[in-house]
């Protein structure tokens, strides 16, 4: 397990989220350490995606705080969160379906392309150089994810497993400090899951990217993660290394005793 260098990368402090009468998250505190792979697990409706949405700015908690690199950023909008260096994928694959794989990744890198939105329009010499430099990085991501052969294919035409991989690529193109993956392996076969596990481990190993992921496949969770946070009915019921969490009676209860799938 990776050790923290100077405090956690991200802290969720006692966050609560409410949708009408439903308490989707209730007083949840989670810290994400630099360099680790954290899994967020729990039965359906436990609040896992809500937690991810809170971290990425899509929802704002009505109570509690979120700190990134020690600074309060509880009420930032999703684009501002992206600017901090937090990238994410979605449970139901949200790709730019009309664009090629390459364009999807280049778009993912939009924030890394300096210069000014409007100035680019008038004077595109520097913009062009920027484009080439960024293209080089995107090609690295394409090589890394082994999707060279589909770089010109419109993303919407790809099979589901590959779409998930392209979505990961788009997030990686932004060179995030924190990568949030919402069920990166949902709907995949065993082989695809093995590939995806390998990519996630490599991203963490080679780029040192901190990763928080939601996953249902316990085998995968046990294999690739450093730490597991378990949610149930919007509350955190366990937090620790996989071996320990697996034996936790509260967790066993949530999954076996009181399954609300």
């Amino acid at each position, binding site marked *: 397990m990776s050790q923290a260098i100077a405090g956690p990368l991200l802290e969720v402090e006692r966050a609560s989220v409410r949708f009408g009468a439903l308490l989707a998250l209730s007083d949840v505190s989670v810290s994400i350490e630099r360099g680790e792979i954290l899994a967020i697990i729990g039965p359906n409706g436990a609040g896992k995606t809500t937690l991810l949405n809170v971290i*990425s700015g*899509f929802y704002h908690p009505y109570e509690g705080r979120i700190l990134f690199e020690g600074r309060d950023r509880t009420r930032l*909008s*999703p*684009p501002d969160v*992206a*600017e901090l260096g937090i*990238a*994410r994928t*979605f449970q139901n694959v*949200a*790709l*730019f*379906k*009309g*664009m090629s794989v390459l*364009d999807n990744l*280049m*778009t*993912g890198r*939009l*924030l890394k*392309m300096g*210069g000014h*939105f*409007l100035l*680019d*329009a008038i004077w*595109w010499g520097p*913009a062009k150089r920027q484009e080439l430099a960024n293209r080089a990085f995107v090609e690295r991501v394409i090589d890394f994810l082994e999707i060279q052969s589909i770089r010109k294919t419109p993303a*919407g035409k790809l099979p589901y497993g590959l779409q998930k991989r392209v979505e990961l690529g*788009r*997030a990686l193109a*932004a060179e995030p400090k924190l990568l949030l993956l919402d069920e990166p392996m949902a709907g995949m076969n065993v082989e695809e899951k093995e590939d995806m596990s390998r990519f996630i481990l490599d991203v963490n190993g080679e780029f040192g990217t901190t990763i928080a992921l939601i996953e249902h496949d316990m085998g995968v969770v046990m294999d690739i993660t450093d730490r597991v946070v378990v949610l149930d009915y919007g509350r955190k019921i366990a937090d620790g290394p996989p071996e320990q969490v697996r034996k936790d009676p509260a967790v066993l209860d949530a999954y076996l005793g009181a399954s609300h799938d």
Partner: protein
Amino acid sequence: MTELLYAVFVGPFRDMASSPAFLVEVLIGGLFTGLMYSLVALGFVLIFKASGVFNFAQGVMVLFAALTLVGLMERGVPVAAALVATMAVMVALAFLIERVVLRPLVNQEAIILFMATIGLNFFLEGFGELLWGANVKRLDVGIPDRSFVVAGVQINQLEMSAAATAAVLVAVLAVFFQRTRIGRALRAVADDHEAALSIGIPLKTIWLIVWSVAGLVAIVAGIMWGAKSGVQFSLSLVALKALPVLILGGFTSVPGAIVGGLIVGVGEKLGEVYWGPLVGGAIENWFAYVVALVFLLFRPQGLFGEKIIERV
């Protein structure tokens, strides 16, 4: 029977061949009208692509822009200054629409946003007349409404300047949206709002940009139309003609809006002049809608629109 067939399929073409200079004049007239449809349709497409909003108020935006320009000029503001002020007004309008109409309705159904733009339509219509009065105004931007003859063809200086301006505008927009990051961001927003947000594209800024651009396009359309037939309420009815243009060109295609507008403009002019006498005229009024109907039946995605493929 043969006489009828002759009158429909041979006569008009014989007329065209017998006076090519006149045919060219009709074509130019058609292209000019078509260009104005294109500009209105272009405003629709930009907004529809970026925000999924079908902006019913696009036609009234044309009227509002022209009214503002004329109103300022009537109060003694020089043309150039009035033009800059009108541009500022249209950008301010875009800002207000984003704040007051779009932002509170974010994530609502498309039909609700559509209804909101109908409201916007009535508001702008009333507000424009309240500010500048409801009488027909002459718009004189300083280009003489003179004609000169080239190779037997009458060419109107005003129409030519207007067409050139529109062409430059379209070219600038094409470069703007294809060569810059805004273009990519715009396409991203059109494809998936959530994903666009997650990679750091500020939706609000994109909306402000497309509504502003739609406003600027409306100014050019307003000037072209206003200089030709006066600034009056009927200007907003151009929007109705833009609808069949959109069906023809495809709701999401910028080239489609332009080509569609030109086809409708030329088609209805040719129809009116050469086939009109057969049916007692007024072909101009319904031609566009019949074309749209045919397209809806056989090619609902339009000439350039993306075919909708649903994965099952």
